[in-house]
């Protein structure tokens, strides 16, 4: 009797689950993209996060933009631009045919509106915009004149950011931010028609988009949010989402790579990871000691032992592919070189009986659970010489980032992903004397400042390349920070529903370029 009851219950469970499972088969043209991000702001004059910008780049266009699948900046809404002789005034000439979903045509004043709101309202992006822009004025419907505080050779790259996208006057209040408007529209291919920040975003096509959609492009895009990468990886295995996107960690990428019916795409871009020696605190206020560390860090071993080659070694803060990127740390230190490190340590009075002792800090999960393994390997490498004794210290992110950027740790660990694709964004934040303290580095060198300021103002690529090469050499000599690895970001899609996706090293994911089955 009991057994029959048990079988009956089990049967009921299976039948009900099958019935329930058949309730909502996905539409053929709807694509569901998983993400572990969170919406911070959908106000173009405020947003300053990779995920918010991804949504915005799909709903709108900026003055300049990335060629799909690359990190190359090309004209966007602006067909062309002129630069004044003093490098301070950029005149952008907008193209025609750009329209919002309601049929309104794009005007240059719409872009000026976003920039001016960003400058007037003190949102998250405010500091970035006012650092470059002095005024933004539309001289007619298709001409926008932007005056800069200082000449910037990389302003076309900067103009690819969200504050340089149009918002028609009246769509956002003039005197306050609206981080969660009912919908998000622009002149791009998509519009957000509904969203719940905790669950999902629904995007439909902009009926007035300037270009035709491919017949294989989705008609609806759903971004679904997950608590962590593990949940997202399980969901794509279970067929609940079509694409697992940011942020899959190397362990999930490795595991999903072995699952039939899933394809992994290496975007070629991703965050860099680096050690942050505190120049304002002993012992790493001493250049020789920073160089000693640089001699001991073997990046290849980290890559091989921790992640079986799914991440890449990094020998300059400027990753491969960017202007003037080189491998200065490799040529200068050729680590591991224990003898060279010991010579420097002994010169500073350290010995086996009197070793250099310090705490090395990292967050346990913010940069993936494999950070612990990275630091175990680092500890072994640094203690390859008896002249060093390292104590690993772990602190959860909320406490960690506060303490590190306040300069409370002698050496720590951070990641970085560019705001705009230019070499300057990989060097200035760490090595420019006014920016460096907020990164927990506190480095100041007038020669470096001169290189960076000159390169930033220069428009001639050849001269910029020379200046940035010199800056990287000085960076490695002074060991401003110690670049470790670059962790390429992957997307994984289900072959049953998706044919291909296009994501470049800039991590710009154009949803209209998804090819559905």
């Amino acid at each position, binding site marked *: 009797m009991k057994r029959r009851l048990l079988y009956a219950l089990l049967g009921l469970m299976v039948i009900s689950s099958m019935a329930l499972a058949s309730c909502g088969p996905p539409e053929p043209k709807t694509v569901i993209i998983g993400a572990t991000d969170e919406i911070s702001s959908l106000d173009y004059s405020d947003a300053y996060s990779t995920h918010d910008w991804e949504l915005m780049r799909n709903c709108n266009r900026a003055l300049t933009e990335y060629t799909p699948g690359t990190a190359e900046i090309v004209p966007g809404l602006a067909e062309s631009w002129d630069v004044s002789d003093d490098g301070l005034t950029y005149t952008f000439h907008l193209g025609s045919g750009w329209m919002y979903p309601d049929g309104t045509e794009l005007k240059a004043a719409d872009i000026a509106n976003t920039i001016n709101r960003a400058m007037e309202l003190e949102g998250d992006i405010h500091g970035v915009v006012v650092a470059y822009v002095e005024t933004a004025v539309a001289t007619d419907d298709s001409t926008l004149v932007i005056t800069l505080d200082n000449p910037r050779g990389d302003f076309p790259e900067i103009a690819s950011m969200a504050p340089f996208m149009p918002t028609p006057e009246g769509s956002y209040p003039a005197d306050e931010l609206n981080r969660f408007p009912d919908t998000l529209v622009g002149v791009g291919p998509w519009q957000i028609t509904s969203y719940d920040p905790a*669950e999902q975003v629904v995007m439909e096509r902009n009926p007035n988009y300037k270009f035709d959609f491919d017949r294989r492009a989705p008609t609806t895009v*759903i971004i679904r949010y997950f608590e962590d990468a593990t*949940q997202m990886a*399980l*969901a794509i295995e279970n067929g609940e989402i079509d694409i697992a996107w940011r942020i899959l960690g190397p362990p999930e990428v490795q595991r999903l790579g072995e699952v039939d019916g899933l394809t992994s795409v290496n975007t070629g871009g991703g965050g860099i990871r680096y050690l942050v020696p505190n120049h304002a605190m002993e012992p790493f206020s001493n250049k020789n000691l920073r160089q000693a560390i640089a001699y001991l860090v073997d990046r290849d071993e980290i890559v091989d032992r921790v992640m079986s080659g799914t991440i890449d070694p990094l020998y300059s803060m400027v990753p491969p592919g960017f202007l003037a990127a080189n491998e200065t740390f490799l040529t200068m230190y050729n680590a591991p070189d224990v003898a060279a490190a010991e010579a420097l340590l002994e010169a500073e009075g350290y010995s086996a009986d009197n070793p250099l002792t310090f705490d090395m800090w990292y967050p346990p999960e913010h940069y993936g659970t494999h950070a612990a393994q990275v630091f175990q390997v680092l500890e072994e490498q640094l203690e390859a010489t008896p002249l060093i004794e390292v104590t690993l210290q772990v602190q959860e*992110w*909320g*406490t960690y980032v*506060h303490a590190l950027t306040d300069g409370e740790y002698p050496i720590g660990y951070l990641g970085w992903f560019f705001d705009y694709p230019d070499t300057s964004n990989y060097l200035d*934040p760490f090595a420019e004397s006014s920016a460096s303290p907020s990164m927990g580095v506190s480095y100041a060198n007038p020669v470096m400042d001169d290189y960076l300021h000159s390169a930033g103002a220069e428009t001639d690529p050849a001269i910029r390349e020379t200046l940035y090469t010199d800056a990287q050499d000085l960076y490695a000599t002074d060991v401003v920070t110690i670049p470790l690895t670059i962790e390429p970001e992957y997307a994984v899609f289900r072959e049953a529903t998706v044919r291909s996706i296009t994501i470049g090293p800039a991590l710009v994911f154009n949803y209209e370029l998804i090819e559905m089955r």
Partner: protein
Amino acid sequence: MSPLAGICIGSLAIAFGFIIYAFLRGSPGLRSYIVTRVLLTLPMVFILVTVIFVVMRVIPGDPVSSQLGPRGSIEARERMREQLGLNDPIIVQYFNYLGKVVRLDLGEALIFGHRPIIDELSERLPATIELTLPAMVFAVGFGVLSGALAAKNRKKASDYGLRLFSIASYSIPIFWLGLVLQVIFGINLGAFPIAGRIDSITNIGLERITNVLVIDSIITGNWAALGSVLHHLILPSLTLGIVLTGVFVRLSRINVIESLVQDYIIAGRARGIRERILVYKHALSNALIPIVTLIGLQFSVLLAGAVLTETTFSWPGMGLYLVERIGQRDYTAVQGVILVFALSVSVISLLTDIIYAFIDPRVRY
């Protein structure tokens, strides 16, 4: 009216209606007890709010650093701290907060768009209710019946099996159990979804009224959505329910065993009443009295379990929200969630005590 306000007002109306009814109909002792408990709740909530306020500010880190990370310049961080009022003296911040709480204003989130906490909770609380209610029903129903079965078959295989299950169930970490169920029923068998509250596509067509999706789908007659919601609900509620079941199995078993040796059971047995009727009708009904008390006590365990279950199943409820916001040092959000949790536990605890007095005439306050 927001869904949260609707749910809160509706629940509080029912709770207070019952308390007033008990006050009017109860003995003088019960009346005095109710008054004392209500009066004690206020300082208890005040102390809790104060402790959470202080603890959140004592632990290192702040919401500005968490949100901006290393990107924000020192000036940008200072500007944001000033905007959020974090540069005010702690005592000023505290009285500002208390003033808002008294006006039923929980403030705004310090990060992620600075939304009003009441709006955030109105989206999250219904999800938690939707998860915890079936879990509790399962835990009580399955636990009590299993306990009675174990008592009936005392010292037989099923008794040992159920006792073993009860010990295991409250020893197992929720996140581990959840992960195992996800892998078995989600990945391997493909029978259930492993994350979220509803299928993404079905979600588009579901009109949100209360944000309790089961109710919303019934109200709007969206049966596809109802199917999807129930389908998504099974694994997380089962996970949470199983962990809570053990204690009900053990308590039910012990009380039924005690009842089974009472005179009225022996008399019933002598009259030829079937054993099943004796156990499940007569012995179990008397054994339910302490179980009612336990339900009240387990409510706080239920909420704690919901935190882990929601994290494991990406269930966008209060628990997941709390975990995220603690990590981000979002003081006002954490204070808001804790306040709602504390008030819920207080009200449930008071209701349980009153119900206890009603169903057991021997109880005197």
